[in-house]
Each structure stands twice: as structure tokens, then as C-alpha cells.
């Protein structure tokens, strides 16, 4: 049921979930992910179809060119996000969400009306770096692993604690000497870079690119990954992205009913599990099990506080 192509889509979903998760972990509801995803995708589509030097001599598109596109997309998204973030992150709550939706729409409409960026037709015939779908799975999986590792490190460190503090109480966080503006900006820029990287992979994987791939619907879909999976730790958006991308495909046998089932899952999920699948309670239970299994190697940091 799950073939390599669906698996790649699921992993892409997980990455987009992580992109939405990063600002959300600092309490910033940013829906800009599809915008930066579109920037990465459009950049990859343009470079790989218009710059013949990147094509190489082999039949397959060289992997080094994909990596170069990813580096450029990361740089472009990072720079843009720094400039945009410095302005829009002054907004709070739903106003930030609205501003980022506007950003996504501006990018979409601009792409739609610029023939040079593909216009309404889009860009076709994006070359393939891999001969079989398994290559995409492996490549995307490596990126997922790298981003998860990065998120895990951040969460365990000063930056992650500062982000959590801002999510809980921004004013109190500032009074602890945390530069809240900067911390929020770092999360926003990281989110944009991840989205840009995914855009590059997607463009090659999908073989064509058009402006509709980064629209408001995508904002909501990617947000649902995090709401469904949970926004406490990186495992939430990964799980949410995997499950919610796979679900519509797995439900194909039941025909049009699948849309209703999918809607129900999205509706019932947050009702039954308001903190998402990976909730703080679940994490606590898991941590308890982990310590019982290997008491000798238990992290000294988590056990030392238990003394009476």
C-alpha cells in the first residue's frame, strides 16, 4: 500500500510539519511555510531547467547540482526570512498568522503573473537526480534525520529553553534577559530554511512546479500536521506529517468517503488529544519506561532532581 513515492510524500510532509513547528514552539503562529517552500521549489525548477551547466553529462541530473540548489534556496530563504521576520514578528497571535498568509498569497500571485517564474502554466520537465523512487526516499529520509537531530539539539539547549519560555510567557521571558525578538527571528529563519530545502526536493520529485503548490490550502494542511501530531517536541510534527500525508492515500479504497473520514480525523484528533498525539503526558510515560529499561545509563540530568 505504501510505495516509495508515497513514502517520499510522507517524508516531505514531515519536513513541512517541522517547518511550521519551529516558530510555533516559540508560540509564533506563522503560516509562511508554503511561501518559502514555493521559493525553494521555483528556484530549483528554474535553475535545473534553464541553467544547462548544472545538468552535467550523465543521463541523471547530478546530485551535486541538487545540493547546490538546496544551498542557494537555504541562503535565499534565510536572507528573505531575516528581513521579513524582523518586521512581521512584531505582530502577535492571529495577526502574525494573517500577515504570513498575506506573504504566501503575495508570492503565489507574483509567481502566477510572472512568465519568467513559470506563470500560470508552471515549469515542466524538471530533471530527475534519481533513477528510481527509492533514491528520493533515502535522500529525503536523510534530510528528515538531519533536521530532527538539529531540533533535538536545540530543544535540549539554551535556545530551546528560551523558545519554550517565550511560548509560555513572552514578557516573563524578556525579564529573564532573553532577547525575545532575536529568539523568535532565529526560529522563523530556521523554519524558512527548512521549507526552502523541502521545496527543492519537491520540485525534482514532482517533476513539475507551479504557483498552486504554495497556497493558503498548503498553509492549513501543514499547520494540521503540527496540531495533530503535537507541538511539544519535534516528534509531533514528524508523526503528524507522516500520518496525515499517508491517510488520504490509504483511504482510497473507500472512495469519496475518505474525504469525510479525513475531515473527521482532523476534527476528532484535537478534541481527544488537545496537545496532539505526542503530548507532554505521553513523553513523561515514555521517559519513565526508558529509565526503567536501562537504569544504569539513565541521564544524570533527569534523575538527580528526584532526591528527597
Amino acid at each position: 500500500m505504501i510505495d516509495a513515492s508515497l513514502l517520499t510524500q510522507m517524508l516531505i510532509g514531515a519536513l513541512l510539519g517541522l517547518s511550521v513547528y519551529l516558530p510555533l514552539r516559540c508560540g509564533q503562529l506563522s503560516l509562511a511555510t508554503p511561501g518559502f517552500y514555493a521559493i525553494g521549489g521555483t528556484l530549483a525548477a528554474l535553475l535545473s531547467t534553464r541553467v544547462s551547466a548544472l545538468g552535467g553529462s550523465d543521463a541523471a541530473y547530478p546530485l551535486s547540482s541538487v545540493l547546490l540548489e538546496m544551498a542557494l534556496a537555504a541562503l535565499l530563504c534565510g536572507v528573505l526570512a531575516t528581513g521579513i521576520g524582523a518586521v512581521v514578528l512584531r505582530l502577535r497571535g492571529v495577526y502574525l498568522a494573517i500577515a504570513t498568509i498575506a506573504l504566501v498569497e503575495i508570492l503565489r500571485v507574483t509567481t502566477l503573473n510572472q512568465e519568467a517564474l513559470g506563470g500560470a502554466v508552471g515549469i515542466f520537465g524538471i530533471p530527475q537526480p534519481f533513477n528510481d523512487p527509492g533514491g528520493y526516499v533515502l535522500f529525503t529520509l536523510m534530510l528528515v534525520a538531519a533536521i530532527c537531530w538539529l531540533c533535538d539539539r536545540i530543544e535540549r539547549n539554551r535556545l530551546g529553553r528560551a523558545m519554550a519560555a517565550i511560548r509560555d510567557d513572552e514578557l516573563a521571558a524578556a525579564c529573564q534577559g532573553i532577547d525575545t525578538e532575536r529568539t523568535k527571528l532565529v526560529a522563523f529563519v530556521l523554519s524558512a530554511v527548512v521549507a526552502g530545502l523541502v521545496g527543492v526536493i519537491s520540485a525534482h520529485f514532482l517533476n513539475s512546479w507551479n504557483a498552486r503548490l504554495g497556497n493558503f490550502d498548503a498553509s492549513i494542511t501543514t499547520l494540521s500536521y503540527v496540531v495533530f501530531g503535537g507541538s511539544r517536541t519535534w516528534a509531533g510534527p514528524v508523526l503528524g506529517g507522516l500520518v496525515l500525508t499517508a491517510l488520504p492515500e490509504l483511504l482510497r479504497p473507500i472512495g469519496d468517503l475518505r474525504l469525510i473520514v479525513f475531515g473527521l480525523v482532523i476534527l476528532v484528533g484535537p478534541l481527544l488529544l488537545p496537545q496532539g498525539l505526542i503530548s507532554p503526558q505521553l513523553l513523561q510515560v515514555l521517559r519513565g519506561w526508558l529509565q526503567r529499561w536501562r537504569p544504569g545509563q539513565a541521564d544524570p540530568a533527569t534523575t538527580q532532581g528526584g532526591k528527597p
Partner: protein
Amino acid sequence: MSAPLLETRNLGVRFGGLQALEAIDLQVNQGEIFGLLGPNGAGKTTLFNLISGVTAATGGEVLWRGARISGLDPNRIARLGIARTFQNLRLFHSLNCCDNVLVGLHRQARLPWAAALLGSGLARRRQHELRERAQQLLELLEIGHLAEQNAADLAYGDRRRLEMARALANDPELLLLDEPAAGMNPGEKDELKGLIRRIRDQFNLTILIIEHHVPLMLGLCDRLAVLNFGRRIALGSPEAVRQNPAVIEAYLGGSS
């Protein structure tokens, strides 16, 4: 004589038509426990908000060691060495007590980003030191056994203690305590008095404290200022303030 640690000059703030504070002149000297008294709505917490940069003043200035700090962001002011607690408790509810204090240690937790990212030996040692420091502070406030508890699950008095532990973690020179005894019984208030003196001596602190409980304040503070309707109506030693007719009138009402 050198400049006082903290000074306000002609400090005032206006919220629309309401002059919440007007022409406040205060000088807090190094090592002092300085009390702010006043009826509800006198502007005590507003004064704290002006000092910590949470609210912008509309007149006058705040000086820290003689240099103007009004207009700076709260995080800049916190990094100068001014820590505060909040009257209505603002803990990080999704974090446990230990992590709440670790956030307070933010300024001391700085590491080269590569070391932090790769979890080098240096980073692990620092992390361990920070956790130990956090645990020490929790124990000082007698909530060491609650380190793994979520801040949201604490009893009211323990939340107040946790806020003080977090503020002490900032490694401040000046500590602003906003009603630390609220909701405590008389026995606990007595203990609190001892605790505040102890931390002042141990951490070499200057303390600015707001509290309603007059006997506690008279017994604890070196000097007191009394506010009423946004104005400073008295300033001086506990004894002088107690006998000040303006203070008696503010608290008991005047004969008209």
C-alpha cells in the same frame, strides 16, 4: 559620594487620562532593603514596571548606577542585573521547576553554538553545572524536592518561591519583589522575612520590595517610601514613616 544603585528622577507615567505615577524621586543605595508601601492602586507595581522596562515612562527617567536606562527593552534591563518577580505570578507553566530556574540562568548559560549543537564535553559539563546551580537555588527556597514537578501543578506558596528562585538565577544586583508574602499565613510571613535577609546577605543584593503587610515591612526594610494616588507621600526610616501624618491619613482616612 558615588551615585546610588538605582535612582528615579521626576518619574511619571500617564495612561490616557490617568496620571498613574507623578514626579517620583527615589534613590536606592547598594545593599539596602527598600520598601514600597501604599494602598491598592497607588502605583507601586506600575513603578516596578517602569524600572524593569515593561512599561514605558511618559516623563522623567530611571538611572542605574548613574546611567539612564529608561527606554531600554526589558531583556536589556534584566541583563544589567535587575531581576523581578510578578505580583500575579508569571511562571513558565509547561516547564518543570528545574527548567524554570534554568531559563532564569539564561545569561550564564551562554556557550559557543557549535559546542552546544554537537553536545561536546564542555557543553555537557556546563549543562550539568547549570542543573546543579538550579537545584541549589530550588533548595535554598525549600522546593528542591519539586524540581521535576510542572510549574502549573505547584501550590500557590511554592509558586511564589519558584518565582524568587528564578529571579535569583538571573544573578541580579537589584531584586524587585512584588508582594512576595501575598497569600502566606503569619508563620510563613515570618519565615519570609528571614529568607529575604538571608538572600540579601548571601547574594550581596539590594532589594526593592512591595508588600501590603505593614508590620512585615516595618520589621524588614531599612528605608520605606509610601505612595498614594501616584505620588510619593513619605520617605524615610520605618519609624519616621510610621509616624508620618500623611501616611496615617492615607491608610486610616483624614478628619475632614
